[in-house]
């Protein structure tokens, strides 16, 4: 029984073991560094000599705790009872019988109740074998630990290692419950359940970089990706360096903040308590940022005396940043917001969002259009204190890499476009229209593809070989990979605001994250021609002359075939691509901070 912070659950689990019809067992509880209440909950039960309890001094992860238990186990058969699950009384008896009648089997598994009122006699659809179901013959195999790989897929972490020793056989009897609750480990790992690398990191406060691969997500290798940062020493605080307290979450291109640290400023972090998987929070895997605890950050701030709070970024952290604003003991406060005002209105967060801008000492808007739009919501708002326009989630300049030496189209004479993320606005029939114009579409990202399965099926049916799927590409390969294409897709939508700022929606105001991705690859941007409508991405592409504005797919083909114009667009993008890195703006941002500090005093 590995356990971490489940004092409220563990008695029920142990009680269900004590009620087994089979009594010839030992229970080895490995407490993976839980708070003291787990030990208190267990203590009254320890009079039963079959129970042993070991507490690891610090949290080492589910697999390490199990391995500690395996090391101590004396019985020939190993069963698992996660501390939030429940056996029915005949569970162990059934599994023992199954193993006894199948000498060729290494592992037996029971049927299981799950999701409160569902039942299966074997595997739960969409999930691997769950530990509560399993008993296996003891061996030398060990679970892959957190330092090596994090996954909710136990097959990969352990079960597969047993397979060479024999078969897996089901009892066919439902004799245990995989108890559903939001704190389950697999839900903390799986993105579609509200988990992911950031919720996982935050829950266990893991300071080291992770290799993380949920059963449906992209593989994330922070160890390799961030080595360059971690292996260098901290930059010493410059003479006029600022102490900057980052508050909230850093989203996709989190390492950008190192551009501030590299310039001799000191970074601290105070992170939102409920991140979504893409809301990057500390402990940051690239290092050089000191975290403050949410409980007593004000005491820490009194000691550290930060010059400025830089609070950001998306709607998931509005509530948290607002709470920090209210508790702020007077540190100059800059609020930088990206996505998005309308989802805040929908979720009832609008009063807090508006107040963040109203009470901040400095305001940063992620596009000129967002700046203008906020001004209509409370006339005078943007002129109250110093303000700045800067996209909130630009990548670090490290990822500005050499471009591919050749485009696919130069090789095969066809036209190749790329969509590095959700193909928003490209319906399956649009893919058919592209195919009719002999335009190829390359769709990247295994996680996104998993969510767009039925789209892919329908699009393939009409694509006539023009739809191509590719795995996820990390920042280090953006330039080389995406520069093989002729152009890349932004969200494809028809704006309906008719040029009136009051009628915009998020598509109109947003700079999608992929703009920078494609900019780093020197790739012209494709979007619908939205004429006189207020559309931030259209204005940006016009300003730098880096975009194709298309009416339909025939029009797109014509524009893509205009070789001199495409050459010019590419050249423009290559010329300005540095502006799509955060580093390009770092000095301007610091200058803005100093303006805010001056205005405040």
């Amino acid at each position: 029984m590995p356990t971490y912070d489940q004092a409220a659950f563990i008695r029920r689990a142990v009680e269900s073991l004590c009620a087994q019809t089979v009594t010839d067992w030992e229970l080895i509880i490995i407490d993976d560094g839980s708070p003291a209440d787990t030990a208190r909950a267990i203590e009254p039960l320890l009079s039963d000599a079959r129970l042993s309890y070991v507490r690891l001094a610090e949290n080492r992860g589910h697999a390490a705790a199990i391995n500690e238990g395996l090391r101590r186990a004396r019985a020939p058969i190993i069963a698992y009872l996660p501390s939030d699950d429940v056996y029915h009384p005949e569970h162990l008896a059934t599994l023992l019988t199954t193993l006894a009648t199948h000498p060729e089997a290494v592992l037996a598994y029971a049927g299981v109740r799950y999701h409160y009122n569902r039942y299966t006699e074997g595997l739960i659809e969409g999930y691997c074998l769950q530990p509560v179901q399993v008993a296996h013959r003891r061996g030398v195999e060990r679970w892959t630990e957190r330092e090596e790989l994090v996954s909710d897929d136990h097959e990969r972490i352990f079960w597969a290692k047993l397979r060479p020793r024999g078969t897996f056989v089901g009892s066919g009897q439902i004799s245990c419950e995989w108890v559903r609750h939001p704190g389950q480990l697999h839900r903390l790992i799986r993105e579609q359940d509200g988990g992911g690398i950031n919720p996982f990191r935050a829950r266990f406060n893991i300071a080291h970089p992770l290799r993380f691969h949920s059963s449906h997500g992209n593989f994330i290798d922070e160890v390799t990706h961030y080595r360059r940062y971690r292996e260098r020493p901290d930059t010493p605080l410059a003479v006029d360096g600022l102490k900057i307290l980052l508050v909230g979450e850093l989203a996709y291109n989190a390492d950008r903040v190192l551009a501030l640290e590299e310039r001799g400023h000191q970074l601290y972090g105070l992170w939102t308590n409920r991140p979504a998987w893409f809301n990057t929070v500390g402990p940051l895997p690239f290092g050089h940022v000191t975290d403050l605890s949410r409980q007593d950050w004000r005491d820490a701030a009194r000691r550290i005396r930060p010059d400025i709070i830089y609070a950001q970024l998306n709607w998931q952290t509005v509530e948290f940043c607002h709470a920090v604003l209210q508790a702020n003991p007077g540190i100059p406060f800059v609020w930088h917001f990206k996505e998005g005002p309308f989802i805040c209105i929908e979720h009832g967060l609008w009063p807090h969002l508006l107040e963040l801008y109203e009470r901040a000492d400095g305001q940063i808007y992620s596009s000129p259009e967002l700046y203008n739009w906020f001004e209509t919501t409370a006339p005078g708002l943007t002129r109250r204190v110093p303000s700045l326009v800067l996209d909130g989630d630009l990548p670090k300049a490290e990822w500005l890499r050499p471009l591919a030496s050749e485009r696919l189209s130069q090789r095969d004479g066809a036209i190749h476009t790329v969509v590095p993320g959700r193909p928003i606005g490209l319906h399956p029939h649009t893919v058919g229209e592209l195919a009719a114009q002999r335009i190829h579409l390359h769709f990247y990202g295994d996680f996104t593809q998993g969510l767009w399965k039925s789209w892919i099926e329908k699009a393939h049916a009409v694509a006539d070989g023009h739809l191509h799927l590719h795995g996820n590409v990390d920042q280090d390969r953006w330039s080389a990979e995406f520069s093989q294409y002729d152009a890349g897709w932004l969200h494809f939508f028809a704006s309906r605001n008719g040029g009136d700022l009051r009628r915009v929606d998020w598509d109109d105001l947003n700079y999608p994250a992929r703009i920078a991705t494609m900019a780093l690859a020197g790739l012209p941007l494709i979007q619908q021609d939205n004429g006189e409508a207020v559309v931030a991405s259209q204005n940006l592409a016009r300003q730098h002359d880096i975009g194709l504005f298309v009416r339909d797919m025939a029009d797109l083909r014509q524009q893509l075939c205009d070789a001199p114009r495409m050459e010019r667009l590419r050249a423009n993008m290559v010329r300005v691509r540095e502006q799509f890195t955060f580093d390009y703006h770092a000095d301007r941002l610091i200058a803005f901070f100093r303006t805010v500090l001056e205005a405040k005093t």
Partner: protein
Amino acid sequence: MSSPLTGPLISVLMPTYGHAAFIRRTIESLIAQSTGDWELIVVDDASPDETGALLARLLADGRLRYVRHVRNTGLGAALTTATALARGRYIAYLPSDDLFYPQHLAELASVLEAQPQVLLAYSGLRYGYQQAGPLADDTVSDAVRSAASGEPHDLGRPYPLKLVQVMHRREHAPRWPTRAERESDALESDVLAEIAAKGLSHYTGAISCEWLDHAGQRSKLLAHRSGGLSRYRAYYGLGRDDWVNWQPTRGPRQDERTRYAAFAIERALPEPGRLHILLLGELGFNPERIVAFEERGHRLSALWVPRPELWDTAGPVPYGNVTVIPYAHGWREQILAARPDVIYALLNWQALNLIDEVLSADLGIPLVFHFKEGPFICYEHGLWPTLVRVLRGSAAQIFISVENRDWFRLALGDLIDPARTHILDGDLPKADWFNDGWATKLSEADGQIHTVVPGRPLGLAPFSAIAAAGIHVHLYGEQFQQMVPNLVREGLASGHLHLHPAVEPAQWVRELSSYDAAWLHLYRSDNGGDLRRARWDDLNLPARLGTYAAAGLPWIMRDNGDAMVAQQQLAAQLDVGLRFSDWEDLATQLRDRRRLARLTANMRAARHTFTFDTHVDALIALFRRVIAEKQEVLS
């Protein structure tokens, strides 16, 4: 009042309450209108935020007028105030969270100017963030077709017009009802339809405004699952004697005055030697039971859950003498200052976070925790650790049945001390509804079998089989009928399903005692007699048991054999249950008139045990015990 000749062309009426974060954007959109010939009349319905200060800054624009109500009166009353002040030839509306596009007023006015026979002009609107059309409901296709025709037309039935999209002639200004007369999400469309019914309407043909969709909007308080009467009352700060006739288009309806007026008795409390009890949480379906404490001389205060469910009741309530401590900064100090003798924390999982918060504030006041539903939903919502903390931190725990208590003892071992527990259903009705207005059985008149279900008809399928067995079913409550359209269709066709409007507690006996028996949730238990495998259906005592008891009705339930089922145990103990295996079996049992008479007599004899009043003294004794223990510890 100025004459129409000197007034502006258009009076824009803006009722507002608590919209400081929205109102500037709204007014900005008015100031940006292409026409300037308007006046804005803001009626601030006693906003608790900085609305007044924000508007004071805008009053330099002479076209703005600002009136503030001393107390919140509701949308209808605010519009009555605004209408009386209007001087324009036409009246338009701009709720303080909505938006006009620049041509909006000009386009509406030009329709009314050009066509004297048109009484009401309306524009198209954006709604639901990204939808747009002539009406905020694309299911009324005939209206959309008339609108698209471009001709003046008869909007004779209550189409869903929103205030923001409408302009009408001032002489046809409607009368707005007060909230005590009627409150509904359909209020604006119904009242505007009265104008439309008097003559022709005309669609401008353009989308020129937005009915802003946001989490806190009035229509969501009225008719969205995130709203409900209790949230409405709390949001508008309603208190004693503020009555609402609650008639949303969806969800339960209630005229508060009809149901609760009898409980609005002023009392000087506490009487000597009686307790001061702080209610903490929410009350469920039978909230007026708390008056039973006051009738015995005890004084009540309350800290209510901030976000009660649609069906649930939390205060402020319009009856009784409950002192409300607002859930806002400073509640801790307010409780300490009020010095209650005991905290009575209740009732369902929705109250757990609040109870946990109060417990962890360590006020030194003993807390008795009364828990109904339920352990499994706590697992689902991540509240299990919270529940365990509350069970551990409370001075005594009240479970709704022995089965519930025993389940918790299995799950938590010696954390549950049986000596500190008490068994009592948490949501029993007030005894006042248990009157003697017995009705004659319908079956005596027609020789048929008549059964009743005044709630969700769970498991009554296939209905054809029930009808074939000759069993009539009477289903009460529009909101439940809406939940099961297929069953209603099939049932009505069979001639054995009969629909009735919801029945108020005052009518329980007279209305429901005319039936032979009443349905519980029909389900098959699969715990095999093992409490560890129980589900909520196995542990629950549904709220409708109290209703059935009042009307002396035997309970119809599926025979779950040796499974551990709390309501089956209770039915056996009282001998009030019809346990059946199939519909034919049930029909046979229902035709056994002698047995039915015995079950009915048993239920009538035991019905007082289903009133809260019967148990108040035992509850008070429990309170006194934990108070005495606390004092012992302190001394």
